[in-house]
């Protein structure tokens, strides 16, 4: 049966890149549709995700699935090559726990710390570092969170491996360093050097420019606010 797989995404979204990474890991052919999420979402996207009106959306033989972590579990259950979840229910539960932690705690804390105004920065950075420390404990000296191969937690934490470094470069802040988080820092290199991962990352220069523009905007806003 011919398979039709489409991904609605946005070039710099870690969420849609997670979906692309999982599909590539499993050797699934798909068509990518870039959405203009800031200015002009397509009628198709709004039809396929009426509840959240967001990317990513996976379309499989005409059936849409939204929410990146829900999509990842669907991909795992539909295409069996290169599993990203273990078989054992307890191990699976541990993977899901850390996936949720990375997604619901780490990501927002890191984003907040990266962009917080001066007066809130110290507290935001402390919270972000707490998250990183906790997440690092889940690595337990392994090469990947998934052990010898990339798994669900690695995919969910993609933001930390790539986006975070560029935010740090753009803002001059250092949240994740080799000194403070040696295991996690090493993981970002391991993860980033996988060929499949490299294929599912946004262009570095374009993303850095995007973040630098955001920094400039934030500074303009602060300057104007204090006039």
């Amino acid at each position: 049966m011919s398979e039709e797989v489409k991904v609605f995404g946005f070039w710099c979204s870690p969420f849609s890149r997670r979906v692309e990474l999982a599909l590539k890991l499993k050797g699934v052919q798909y068509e990518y549709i870039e959405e203009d999420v800031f200015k002009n979402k397509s009628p198709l996207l709004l039809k396929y995700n009426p509840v959240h009106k967001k990317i990513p959306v996976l379309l499989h033989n005409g059936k849409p699935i939204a929410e990146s972590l829900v999509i990842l579990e669907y991909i795992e259950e539909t295409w069996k090559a290169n599993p990203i979840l273990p078989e054992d229910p307890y191990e699976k539960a541990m993977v899901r726990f850390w996936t949720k932690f990375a997604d619901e705690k780490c990501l927002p804390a890191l984003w907040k710390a990266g962009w917080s105004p001066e007066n809130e920065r110290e507290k935001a950075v402390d919270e972000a570092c707490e998250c990183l420390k906790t997440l690092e404990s889940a690595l337990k000296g392994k090469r990947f969170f998934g052990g010898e191969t990339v798994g669900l937690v690695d995919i969910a934490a993609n933001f930390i491996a790539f986006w975070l470094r560029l935010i740090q470069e753009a803002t001059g802040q250092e949240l994740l360093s080799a000194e403070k988080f040696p295991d996690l820092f090493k993981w970002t290199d391991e993860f980033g050097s996988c060929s499949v991962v490299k294929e599912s990352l946004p262009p570095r220069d374009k993303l850095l420019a995007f973040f630098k523009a955001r920094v400039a905007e934030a500074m303009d806003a602060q300057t104007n606010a204090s006039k």
Partner: protein
Amino acid sequence: MAEEVKLFKTWSTPFGLRVVWALKLKGIQYDAIDEDLSNKSALLLQYNPVYKKVPVLVHNGKPISESLVILEYIDETWKQNPILPQDPLEKARERFWAKFNDEKLLPSIWGVFTKEGKEREEAIADSLENLKFVEEELTGKKFFGGEKIGLADLVFGWLAYLICVFEEVTGLKIIDERFPLLLAWIQEFSELPIIKDNFPPHDKLIIKYQAFYEKYHPAK
């Protein structure tokens, strides 16, 4: 092999209750440990060091935290009366709505309960929009899981016993006649013995949430 299942919860947490329902549905024997959140036990802190929260399921000494993670674990470990369907697309739908409840619906309704003035107006508008999506999802179905209850029903289950408490305490109508399918679902869901036999006591909930309400809306 002797099976040891413990559940750390509180008498009122809806997150713990969904786990209770799943265990009862599958006929699993377990020890319930009701925590006092103002004085958390050493065991709870040992079993859930990351969040220090309930519920925590401990199966043969191994702890699992986060209610949705626990529910999936229960379904994979005890196969009778499944709460998730086999088909990956249907499974994805259940997971989508479970997330929607936890990330959108519940926070918006809690906002109606806790906020004041303009913020409350916004929370009301958000809640109405979220409820409309849930109402639509029930089209042509008895339960979110179809003919039988599933994961999404257990996760939305707090609506069946807590909305009336919120409405009584705030004097606001949250789920009104604009949501006939949801009202019908609440009725059907609440009639299931496993569900209603485990509802926390209504009077005790009123006292608890009345106290909360006064905290969030101090008399001026």
